[in-house]
């Protein structure tokens, strides 16, 4: 056990910190779920890419810097503590990229990965359907082979970034006779494909956080299949492991939020507002849990670096971070008292309404990527070994 950063890691951290301090946007960007804000975020992806900081864990040949897991964790901590913007590229980098590295052809890797790293391609996820939420095996969108194209018909929903993304990674049913997990295929769909219509859906504060996709005889080239036709379930599950686990939710974001929460307490005290001891306790508890998530992640990273695989334990992490994120933000709103319900535009909104925005965002955590109820089933059955039936 060695919990000190090595000189090499310290140097890496300092380089990362200095670069972020010098390059991060001077002002908060507009919401990435507006047309203008989306492009601002894309520009920031380009700045990151040019600095070599958009995908530090990737091979240098695709725009990364071959970071190991520890460096990546350090990078994430620095990134979020710096206050840099959210990553509009996250769906692609965290969910799709591991799948492309694992299952993509050389041509697919060479084509898609650099454009993802540079922000030229921003990706959305097209998995859920109105009748297939947590139950992905119920996917009904059909893709029927017609020469060197598939013809898609059906509907996808809850596509984060879907309103403005350039590409969508989908799971579609290529064999309508097959049931459940069989007959599914992982397909990469350009957002400008003929026959694809997109409709934004507002999240509950009105921001268009998702899109619905309607496929009406939409034609997509066969060479956009990722992995084999009919192997979509296995391919997708590999990515689901990423989504639920280490890649998407590094501790950095929660540690940064926990720091901001303690800062909020200090600010309120400076405003001569009394801090209720129960609220102080909630803040402390949330801060401790952010630290617990951090150290659990470092322990997991050590196992992975020793060659272990992140299996069902990813469900433990997903439940913990999503409930931590919610509690961090709910605690902030409770601390804010009657200012807690003020929207971004209100003159008295604290920090531009960021806590409320973060709360609304956090509310989706226990729902998406497999509800926490399903995650707890996985923990019970696969981690603890309880009988399925």
């Amino acid at each position: 056990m060695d919990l000190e950063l090595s000189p090499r890691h310290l140097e890496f951290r300092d380089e990362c910190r200095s670069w972020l301090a010098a390059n991060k946007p001077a002002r908060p960007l507009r919401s990435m779920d507006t047309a203008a804000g989306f492009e601002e975020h894309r520009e920031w992806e380009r700045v990151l890419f040019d600095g070599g900081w958009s995908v530090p864990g990737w091979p240098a040949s695709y725009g990364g810097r071959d970071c190991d897991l520890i460096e990546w964790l350090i990078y994430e901590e620095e990134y979020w503590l710096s206050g840099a913007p959210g990553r509009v590229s996250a769906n692609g980098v965290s969910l799709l990229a591991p799948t492309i590295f694992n299952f993509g052809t050389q041509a697919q890797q060479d084509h898609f990965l650099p454009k993802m790293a540079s922000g030229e391609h921003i990706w959305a996820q097209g998995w859920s359907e109105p009748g297939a939420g947590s139950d992905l095996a119920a996917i009904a969108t059909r893709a029927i082979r017609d020469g060197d194209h598939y013809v898609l018909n059906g509907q996808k929903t809850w596509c984060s970034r879907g309103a403005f993304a350039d590409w969508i990674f989908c799971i579609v049913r290529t064999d309508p006779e097959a049931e459940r997990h069989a007959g599914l295929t992982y397909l990469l769909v350009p957002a400008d494909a003929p026959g694809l219509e997109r409709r934004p859906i507002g999240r509950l504060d009105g921001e268009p956080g998702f899109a619905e996709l309607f496929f009406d005889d939409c034609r997509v080239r066969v060479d956009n299949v990722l992995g084999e036709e009919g192997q979509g379930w296995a391919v997708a599950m590999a990515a689901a492991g990423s989504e639920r686990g280490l890649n998407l939710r590094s501790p950095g974001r929660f540690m940064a939020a926990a720091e901001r929460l303690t800062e909020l307490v200090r600010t309120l005290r400076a405003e001569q507002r009394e801090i209720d001891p129960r609220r102080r306790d909630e803040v402390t508890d949330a801060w401790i849990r952010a630290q617990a998530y951090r150290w659990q992640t470092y322990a997991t990273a050590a196992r992975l670096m020793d060659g272990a695989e992140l299996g069902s334990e990813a469900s433990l992490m997903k439940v913990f971070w999503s409930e931590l994120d919610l509690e961090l933000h709910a605690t902030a709103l409770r601390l804010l008292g009657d200012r807690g319900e003020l929207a971004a535009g209100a003159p008295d909104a604290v920090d531009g309404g960021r806590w409320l925005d973060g709360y609304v965002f956090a509310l989706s955590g226990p729902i998406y990527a497999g509800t926490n109820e399903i995650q707890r089933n996985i923990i019970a059955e696969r981690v603890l070994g309880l009988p399925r039936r």
Partner: protein
Amino acid sequence: MRFSFTEEQDMFRDTVRDLLADVCPPDAVRAGWDNDDGRVPGLWPALAEMGMLSILAPEEDGGLGMDEVDLVRLLEETGYAGVPDPIMEHVAVAVPALAEAGASGHLAAAIAGETTCTIALTGGGDYVVDAEGADLVVVERDGGLVAATEYRVEPQASIDRSRRLGKLVAVDSVDPLSGADPILANDRAALGTAAQCIGVARRLLDSTVDYVSERRQFGKPVGTYQAVKHHLADVRLGIEFAAPLVHRAAWSVAHPESHDVTTRARDVSMAKAMAADAVDRACRAGLQCHGAIGYTDEYDLQLWLKRGWALAAAHGDAPSHRDRVADALGI
């Protein structure tokens, strides 16, 4: 000792429920988001006509001369319907304050529905519901209440677009309301908010029960999963044991002859603390059991989620009300 409502009270409640279902469906609430005052056209006159606005006004002033026990479940219904108008502020706090102060001109206009009143009490924080749209604000200041009729407001957008919040930045014309008790006004506001919390929680529960009974995942209705059942059983438990405290607090407020100020404070605060916790739980479970669709702007669940968040904290959150109970208990 008989802890139940009368048949007449049941009928009045049903009448209000039917009216709100008719005049104030979710579409009407949404329509208000983009109009001038956020309110539902036609609702105020209809409420005036059925006497709801004058429940707490004495008969000699043209009111119904009823009390908080008559009112409390009607306020639950306004929560259930998601009424955006400042009905609680008007009927539960402002009208009796105007009556107790003998402000007969203001009172007559208020119970006729010609004017709309709202409230700015110390227990209610810095932001006033519907301050811009209202004609009169009952303001607590210098240990008393005044009726402000000319004032300036700085709008403060709430996440709940049916709650038009504003900060009073200047009050130019006031009538003192001597004879009206600010402590009682604060208790009435907390009680009324608690009643609305119960209604919001019930609506969230009903909507969620309906949804999970229909929505299928993994080949069966979501509502067959034990985790979903237990989430919703807990919501029902919260409501089941908060509502009697709200009704009991209404009795306490309505019977000053047998409830001193400390007892009333204790009873009102018990009600608000439990109701706030109940609606908070209903919000969380309601959203979680809906899944992604509950998280969208287009689906109506959000109307009650946002109202629930706001009302749980309005006029004192659960811990602050528990503190009042603790003080009353001398611990």
